[in-house]
């Protein structure tokens, strides 16, 4: 009986976080996370992000700010919505790439680590990736990070999205087979990329 109660409790906790639909549990506004490893290539085209409160979002002690987002199907779906809303599709298309690099493949120019992806969105990257830091809340950036990583199957299957109510132009995120990320070291091979 005790085992059962414990099991229920664990399940309850797991269920609670996994299905929580709380839009903002992180303070609004975003900045580059302090102490995150910095790439040699800094900053994005728009220059240093206009971060009003640089350390408003100190990383949680365990250093896993992405964890709650990457375990929540709801957060990933929000990321998917924002991916459309903030016009990520404009350059990256639905993951297949265009002006920007494809996101659904196994190549990661700046590394597939959530912190790195977060950094790419916050600070921007050369060759056209704008910086979103300071424009949108950090929670939304983490949602985008989670979604972007889910596109190539890096998140558990049960949080990745299935088809949306649009034309199906690519296999759904859930149908992607997780591919081992390449270029994990993060040497920016900007030369390899055509424009």
């Amino acid at each position: 009986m005790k085992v059962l109660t414990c099991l229920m409790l664990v399940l309850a906790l797991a269920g609670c976080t996994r299905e929580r639909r709380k839009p903002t549990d992180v303070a609004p506004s975003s900045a580059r996370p302090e102490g995150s490893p910095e790439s040699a290539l800094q900053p994005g085209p728009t220059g240093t992000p206009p971060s009003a409160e640089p350390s408003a979002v100190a990383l949680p002690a365990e250093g896993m700010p992405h964890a709650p987002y990457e375990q929540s199907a709801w957060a990933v779906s929000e990321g998917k919505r924002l991916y459309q809303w903030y016009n990520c599709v404009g350059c990256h298309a639905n993951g297949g790439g265009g002006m920007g690099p494809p996101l659904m493949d196994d190549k990661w120019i700046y590394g597939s680590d959530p912190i790195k992806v977060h950094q790419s969105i916050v600070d921007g990257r050369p060759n056209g990736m704008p910086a979103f830091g300071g424009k949108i809340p950090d929670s939304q950036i983490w949602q985008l990070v989670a979604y972007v990583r889910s596109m190539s199957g890096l998140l558990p299957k049960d949080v990745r999205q299935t088809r949306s109510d649009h034309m199906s132009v690519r296999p759904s995120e859930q149908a992607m087979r997780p591919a081992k990320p390449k270029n994990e070291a993060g040497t920016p091979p900007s030369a390899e990329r055509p424009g």
Partner: protein
Amino acid sequence: MNLLERLQSLTERFAQSALETAGPQAERIAALWWLFFWVCTIIFVLVVAALVFALYRGRARSVEESSGPAVTLDSGREAGIHRKIFGLIVLTAIILFAFLLATEMTGRSLASLTSSGGVTIELTGYRWWWRARYLDPAPERIVVTANEIHIPVGKPVLINLYSRDVIHSLWVPELHGKRDLIPGHPNALWIQADRPGRYDGQCAEFCGQQHAHMRLIVIADPPDRFDAWLDAQRVTAQAPGDDTAKRGMEVFLTGSCALCHAIQGTDANGQVAPDLTHIASRATLAAGTLPNTPGHLAGWIVDPQHVKPGAAMPPNSLSAEDLQALLAYLKGLR
């Protein structure tokens, strides 16, 4: 009596009502409703009276020991009962047929309330707000607004209904019944207001977390005022007047606002949230949730999730000056 008066006073304070109508469509439906209401009330009273009498009569004849049947059946009497029931059924059928006829007639007269060349509004449902476009053959004369539509008094208005996400349903009880907005199934509804005034409506099909706060304000204006309003809406946004407002415009354009919202005449061209070109002319904020006052607007900008948990608008932490500047700018968007 006192209680009745109190109840009476209760019903008079409703902001919306399907029975206090303001247009021909709702009026005809209300007329049909009252026909049904009175006939059904009479039937109900008669049935309950029969039930009460039957119970009273049966109890008076009751014999207290509780074993076995206590009535000897007389076949002639039973046949009489059967005949009476048959008669009642015929009567029921006649009443139902009358109901059917009345329904059919009302349906036809509702379908006839149309016109050509009037105002056509394209209304699109989003979670959880409404985008309205006043159609015009000339693209530059198309008016885009949100959550508040104006219609001319006395003229049928065609509303084309679309949804970009889930199913919503348009319902302004004073003007007409519901019509669903269904993705993949364009719909249309003709409405008409015969009295000037403000008529509140709302989404009537459950559409997610903030279904409760997806209201639509319909303002019926006399034709000349309506035309004036429409002309005013066609003008692009007013340029900011003073420095504070200029600063506010900069905040709007460089911050996160412009990612989602559009203000005609500026670089802000976001298409996923309400158009704010004439925000200051609207009566409410957040799809009828808040009155449009500077205080509420400030609260809404800073912490929309407190007002409308789950809405798509994220919180914005602006410095006090930036916020004041932004408010000053938005206040000027009449």
